[in-house]
Structures are given as structure tokens and as C-alpha cells.
């Protein structure tokens, strides 16, 4: 199953036989108090650097979240989407828990966007899926409802419910990316084994594409690049096809591209070798 996302000039295809889709997480005020303060002033200028760094780091798509409770998130999203689309041709992931902000972002977007996100809760499904359908977008479905299931089978059931509800609204399964929920391994020792088992089940039972917030895994730990790279390699080998992740981290992005090669998604290592040559040339320059 392949998920197609578009900007006005570029197409990204997510699928099990494709290279892993790296979605840059950086445009998000969580954990960035300076950015929060700027958003409250209506100042989006910091986004330019965020875009440049993530594009240089090798992102395939960018997530855009401008949520701050003291700011006008709907208006900020309406401005941020054309701003980012003016800076890069990468397709975008419109990220908000505020339904009006998702709508404003979709209204301002040129192309086919990814909406982040809906859960398995009935009220969220009923509110968000019609908007996704109206704009012909794709959507991320988190495998939780009012609680987070701690067994892979129960997460699968939530995922199944989301795919089915999407279908009821005319959204095909290829336009649903399930998030199997990456949790901090520093707080939950079986977080990653549970995660990869969930990924495997969803791949076998539903066959849909999947994404996750990969940085959650290494929260509060040292050596986040190494942990992040190992996590994504493991997860991709079980069927994860994209992640919202730190695209500015050379170590993690290289681990993802190495995994593409090792899993047969980069035939003869053409991209791997080309990236090496680019790096060499940049070092020589």
C-alpha cells in the first residue's frame, strides 16, 4: 500500500518497498520556550532556520505545529503554511489538536497534505475525518482512544477502528498512516518491544503505512542519536514506513538511510553511495 503526499511541485510516496519517509519534527513549540514566546507575538521568523536545517539534514517532509495556548493558533497556522511552502517544496504535515487550526492549515495548503492527527475516540473521528476527506488529504491515526492500550492487540483494534471510520468518510486506507505510539524507553522498559510487535501486527493485519513520534523513545536519556538510529532501524525492519523525527541529526538520518539500503529499499546502495560522495565533496570544498 502506498501513500502519496504532494506539495505544488513535489511528490513523496510512502510505502513498504520505498525508502523510509523522514518527517522533520522541528517546527513545534513544545520544549522551545523562545519559539513559544515568539508565537505569542505572532512572530514566525524562526521557522526559516528550522526549514533550512531540516532540508539540509535530508527531510522528506516537514511537520508544522504552531500551537501555543496564549497565541491565536488558527491565524498562525493560516500564515505558517504558505510561509513554509514558500521556503521549501517538501510536502507538509499539518499538526494541531485544534480542529479549526487543521482546517485553516488545509485551506492554506497547496497540494495533498498529511493531517496530524486523529485518535480512535469517536468525537475526534467524527470531527476530523470529514475535514480530511473534504480536502482530499491523508491523516495520521494514533492507536489510542481515551487511554493508551498497553497490549499490541488492543492497539491494533484501535488502528482497525480508525481505518474503518476513515473508509466510512471516503478516505481510503492508503491515506491513513497509523501511529503505533512510541513511548519513552527510559520510563517504560518494554516500550520498544511493545512498539515493534504492534508495528508487525498492523503490517500483517491492516497493511497500512505507519509513522510515529520517534524522539519520544529516547526522552530523558543520553546518546539520543545512537538510540534514535537503532530504534528506527529496528522499527523499519518490522514495517514502520515513516517517522516524525529529528531530521537535523546527521546520526539518526544516516542510520535511517543505512537501514533503507540494508532492507533492500535502496538498490545497490545508489543513494547511500551518492550521499557519501556529496559529503566528501562538501568536506573538500
Amino acid at each position: 500500500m502506498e501513500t502519496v503526499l504532494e506539495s505544488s511541485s513535489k511528490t513523496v510516496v510512502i510505502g513498504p518497498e520505498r525508502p523510509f519517509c523522514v518527517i522533520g519534527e522541528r517546527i513545534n513549540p513544545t520544549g522551545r520556550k523562545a519559539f513559544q514566546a515568539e508565537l505569542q507575538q505572532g512572530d514566525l521568523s524562526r521557522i526559516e532556520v528550522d526549514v533550512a536545517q531540516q532540508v539540509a539534514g535530508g527531510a522528506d517532509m516537514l511537520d508544522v505545529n504552531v500551537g501555543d495556548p496564549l497565541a491565536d493558533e488558527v491565524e498562525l497556522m493560516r500564515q505558517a503554511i504558505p510561509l513554509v511552502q514558500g521556503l521549501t517544496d517538501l510536502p507538509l504535515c499539518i499538526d494541531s489538536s485544534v480542529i479549526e487550526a487543521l482546517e485553516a492549515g488545509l485551506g492554506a495548503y497547496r497540494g495533498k497534505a498529511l493531517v496530524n492527527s486523529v485518535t480512535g475516540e469517536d468525537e475526534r473521528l467524527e470531527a476530523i475525518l470529514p475535514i480530511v476527506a473534504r480536502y482530499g488529504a491523508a491523516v495520521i491515526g494514533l492507536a489510542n482512544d481515551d487511554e493508551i492500550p498497553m497490549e499490541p492487540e488492543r492497539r491494533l483494534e484501535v488502528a482497525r477502528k480508525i481505518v474503518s471510520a476513515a473508509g466510512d468518510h471516503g478516505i481510503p486506507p492508503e491515506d491513513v498512516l497509523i501511529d503505533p505510539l512510541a513511548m519513552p524507553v527510559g520510563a517504560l522498559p518494554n516500550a520498544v518491544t511493545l512498539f515493534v510487535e504492534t508495528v508487525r501486527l498492523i503490517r500483517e493485519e491492516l497493511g497500512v503505512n505507519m509513522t510515529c513520534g520517534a524522539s519520544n523513545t529516547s526522552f530523558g536519556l543520553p546518546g539520543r542519536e545512537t538510540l534514535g538510529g537503532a530504534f528506527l532501524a529496528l522499527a523499519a525492519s518490522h514495517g514502520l514506513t515513516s517517522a516524525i523525527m529529528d531530521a537535523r541529526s546527521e546520526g539518526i538520518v544516516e542510520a535511517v538511510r543505512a537501514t533503507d539500503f540494508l532492507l533492500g529499499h535502496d538498490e545497490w546502495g545508489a543513494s547511500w553511495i551518492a550521499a557519501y560522495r556529496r559529503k566528501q565533496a562538501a568536506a573538500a570544498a
Partner: protein
Amino acid sequence: MTHEEILQGLYDFTLVGNAPEVRDLVNQGLEDGIGPESLLYDALIPSLEEVGARFERGDYFVPEMLIAARAMQGALDILRPLLAETGAKPVGTYVMGTVKGDVHDIGKNLVNIMLEGAGFTVFDLGVNVAPETFVQQVQEHQPDVVGFSAFLTTTMPMFKANINALVKAGIRDDVIVMVGGAPVTQEYATAVGADGYAADASTAVRLAKDLIAKRRAAVPA
């Protein structure tokens, strides 16, 4: 072992989160006649405060803090009934939860343990707690403080929703409201009308005690 060695051992084993050793030493200390208050205030609390300080400096990581807290929790399970017997009144009562839409609980759980260690009775409502549930639990337990935790900028507005629900239920002035979580600022806490905000667990405990003291001074019981 001398009393001093037991207290030092408790401090050291709590620091590295060795729950079985901590439990054994608490029991041994009690057998040897060390009072439960001494075990708590001369070993366990100073150790957990050191854990908090190391974490804030970046010397300790999340798992280390969590296992230390778990060791402390094991000790408290033994000491709590004994402390109650000695007639030590709880410092205060605290109802705590992560707001609706948010499932992050690492920070909240740490604050809870620090509060319990400091002598609070804590009712933990868990994560994704609806405003109605907060209201109902505040009515039931009549705590000194209710704490709202949020880890996401997108769930922080629930602070306001919770406070509105308390106002609507006519119990806003009966309880101190504290808020916290990674993206929360003093400015935001003030804007939503909370009584207190703390950036970390030890500050939260100190602030809770201060706010309770102020309130008790202002309103004669």
C-alpha cells in the same frame, strides 16, 4: 550496623534506586529502634532531593530518577502506617492528575513521590483526567491543593477548563490550584488564574507548603 550506618546506607541505596536494599534497611532501622521520622527526614528525603538536584544539573537521567523514586515509594509503603500511628498529621492533602488529552505522566509521578515523601497525602487521578473528574475528586477528598499537569502546549488550555469547572461547581476558592509541566511558564499559570506554578518537583513541594501555610494563616481554622 550503627544507626548512622543504616541512615547512610539508606541514603546511598535510594540514590542508586536499589529498592530491595532500601526496604531491608528500613526494616532493619525500625527493628534497631530508629524512628520512622528519622528514616524519612535524615535519609530518604535528602537522598531523593539529591536525585532531583542531579537530574536538574543533567547528571542524572530519567530511568535513574524513576528507580530512585520507586525505591523511595517502597520505603514509604512501610513507613506510612507507622507515621500515621505516631499521630504525625499529614502536611496537606493533594489531588493530582494529567489533564484531558494528555497522557504524559513521568513528571507528575515524580512530583507525587516528592510530595508523599514530604508528608503529603496524595490522590493520583492518573492521566487524561477530565475537568468533571477533577471537580468530583476535589469534592470527595477536599484537598488543600489540586495539581494539573500538562506536557504539551496543545493541552495546557485544559488548565483553564479545569479552573472554570471548579468555579462552576462553586469550589474554586476552597482549594489551591497548582499547575506544571515542561511547556508551562509562570506567565501562563498567572494568565489562567492558577495559584502556583513550579518548574520542578522539589520546588513544587516547597511551593505547596508555602501556599498552604499562607492560606491557613489567612483563614483561621
